[in-house]
């Protein structure tokens, strides 16, 4: 499934499968996810809570928790398979060529270490900088992410910063070694809209300045609309739609994506009395239906959907917009 414009792929994840060991035996959490990131591209990964967004990204860096393991697939980053690397090699990549911003800024910073030290850590380890040089660079990084009085802040402890500032420190750590790829896992979920807007702006600026690729994980379709180039929609551990951002918002092809977009109240249109919503709840891992994972909630499900899993295929024969749904063709026609 080579990309049409032939851009160089920075990250190429194929058929990634992750399992967890539970009391009822192993359960698939991630079931054959494939996604790609081009050089300089910003990819949005959206999906409901528990659909496997975080674990997918953690698996790339060998950071999966106990009892959860990768059982298949590959993840090629700059020509090397991340999933086949030894711990030692992975450590070199982590925080070096791939920067990571964790979901929860409150617990991912070490509360008893000054933030300056925490920003310096990857510089000391990956760049072999001296302490003085690393400290200077750490100050610059904090300024880069827009922390006022950056140099003085180096000696603060995490609890002395506000939530938004802590999140910016996390971003500074992710950026410390000029990564080729920045993976940000719901970096703004815990923050207010005004602070959220600040952080999105900072990331946009940095992207323009540093030219890196970004994977931005979120469940907020509105937040990433102006930020990303392409969106991958996950549902229950698999990719259900993968499309350029404008195409996805204008012509969503998967019933889940359509439902998701329709259930967001818009500021622009005056409150329609009733929001359209998707009934039911996403299936838990281990209880997923045999056919299309969305079938129990899908308003247009048919007999076929409960038997077979639809493959991720291009809509209307083009390469860029792909969807996993038996009814995709009809939806596209109905819209057109």
């Amino acid at each position, binding site marked *: 499934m080579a990309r049409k414009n032939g851009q160089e792929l920075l990250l190429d994840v194929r058929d990634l499968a992750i399992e967890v060991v539970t*009391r009822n035996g192993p359960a698939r959490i991630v079931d054959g996810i494939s996604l790609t990131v081009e050089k300089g591209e910003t990819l949005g990964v959206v999906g409901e809570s528990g659909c496997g967004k975080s674990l997918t990204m953690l698996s790339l860096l060998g950071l999966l928790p106990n009892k959860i393991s990768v059982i298949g697939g590959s993840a090629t980053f700059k020509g090397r398979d991340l999933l086949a690397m030894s711990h030692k090699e992975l450590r070199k990549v982590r925080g070096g060529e791939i920067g990571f911003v964790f979901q929860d800024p409150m617990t991912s910073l070490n509360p008893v270490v000054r933030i300056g030290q925490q920003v310096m850590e990857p510089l000391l380890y990956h760049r072999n900088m001296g302490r003085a040089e690393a400290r200077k660079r750490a100050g610059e990084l904090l300024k880069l992410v827009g922390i006022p009085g950056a140099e003085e802040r180096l000696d603060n402890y995490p609890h002395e910063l506000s939530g938004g500032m802590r999140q910016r420190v996390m971003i500074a750590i992710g950026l410390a070694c000029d990564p080729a790829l920045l993976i940000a896992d719901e970096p703004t979920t815990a923050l207010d809209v005004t602070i959220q807007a600040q952080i999105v702006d900072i990331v946009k600026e940095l992207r323009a300045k540093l030219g890196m690729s970004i994977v931005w994980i979120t469940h907020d379709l509105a937040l990433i609309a102006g930020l990303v180039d392409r969106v991958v929609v996950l549902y229950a551990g698999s990719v259900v739609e993968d499309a350029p951002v404008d195409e996805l918002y204008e012509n969503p092809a998967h019933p889940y994506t359509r439902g998701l977009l329709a259930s967001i109240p818009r500021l622009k249109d005056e409150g329609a009395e009733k929001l359209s919503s998707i*009934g039911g709840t996403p299936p838990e891992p281990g209880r997923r239906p045999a056919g299309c994972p969305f079938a129990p909630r899908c308003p247009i499900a048919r007999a076929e959907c409960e038997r077979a899993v639809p493959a991720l295929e291009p809509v209307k024969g083009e390469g860029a917009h792909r969807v996993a749904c038996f009814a995709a063709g009809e939806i596209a026609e109905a819209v057109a």
Partner: protein
Amino acid sequence: MSDMALKQEDVREEPPANLWRDAWYRLKQNRMALTSLVIILALAFIAVFGPWLTPYDFLSQDLIARNQPPAWAHPFGTDELGRDVLSRVIYGTRTAFIVAISVTAVATLIGIVLGAFAGYFGGLLDRFVMWFTDMTMSVPQLLLVVVINASLKPPLARWMEAQYLETLNPIYRNSIIIDFVLVFGSMALITWPPYARLVRAQVLSVRNRPYVTAARALGLSTPVIIARYIVPNALGPLIVAVSAGLGTAMVLESAFSFLGIGVNPPMPSWGNMIADGLRVWRNYPHLLLAPAMMLAVATVAFSFLGDGLNDALNPRGQK
């Protein structure tokens, strides 16, 4: 909308699980804890059915067969008075369990009452209870028991004797009762503080849980909230502490009996058997080994079970 919302729910009916069942599942995964549980159940069985299990009376002396090494007739050998060591160890188990359970029960009860009140009402009451707890904890345990023993035992013994003379009821002749009431009563009096602290801390944390606030918002009254929302949720860690506490109480009992201020001969206890065995261990190591092994096995089992329960009751602490 509602029927649509539950389309999927209706298809799959899941087995109703509950917290205790989940905890039991997690406990079963922990091999150490499970082994410990089996050992403890076996020991408890021995303690309960001891009198029917012992091959000999623990007091019957066979002066011809003294200090016998282990053999078919006496699997753990005999002691210096020719008593069967296995029988005595079995009775010692009985003593250990009775003491551990009664001491822990009294201590836990004191702890729950003081801790729950201190935690829920706070303020001056809390401060007083905590001061009292700290005071009790700061007194060396051994010293306290010795003092209680020395000052209360003679008058109590005299009173028992007087009762006996009046009623001729043989129960007053039983010195074991004095041991139990006095020594183990005092042990309970020194071991309650950790329970009180634990219960207080639990109540303090549960008291501020959102579901307690939610219950207050429903307009429920304080006693209802304490009984139905706070106590059941504060119980988990207490169960853990009690399990570990049973082991500690056994060690304490043995320590006191070893020093001669606990269970007194001829009533067997692991502690006084260890004391007896220690005097002659060079010549007859089995006299020391048998009770010491029992004590070690029991306390290790209780402590592993306590750890296991701690993990099992705390779903988040799996890592």
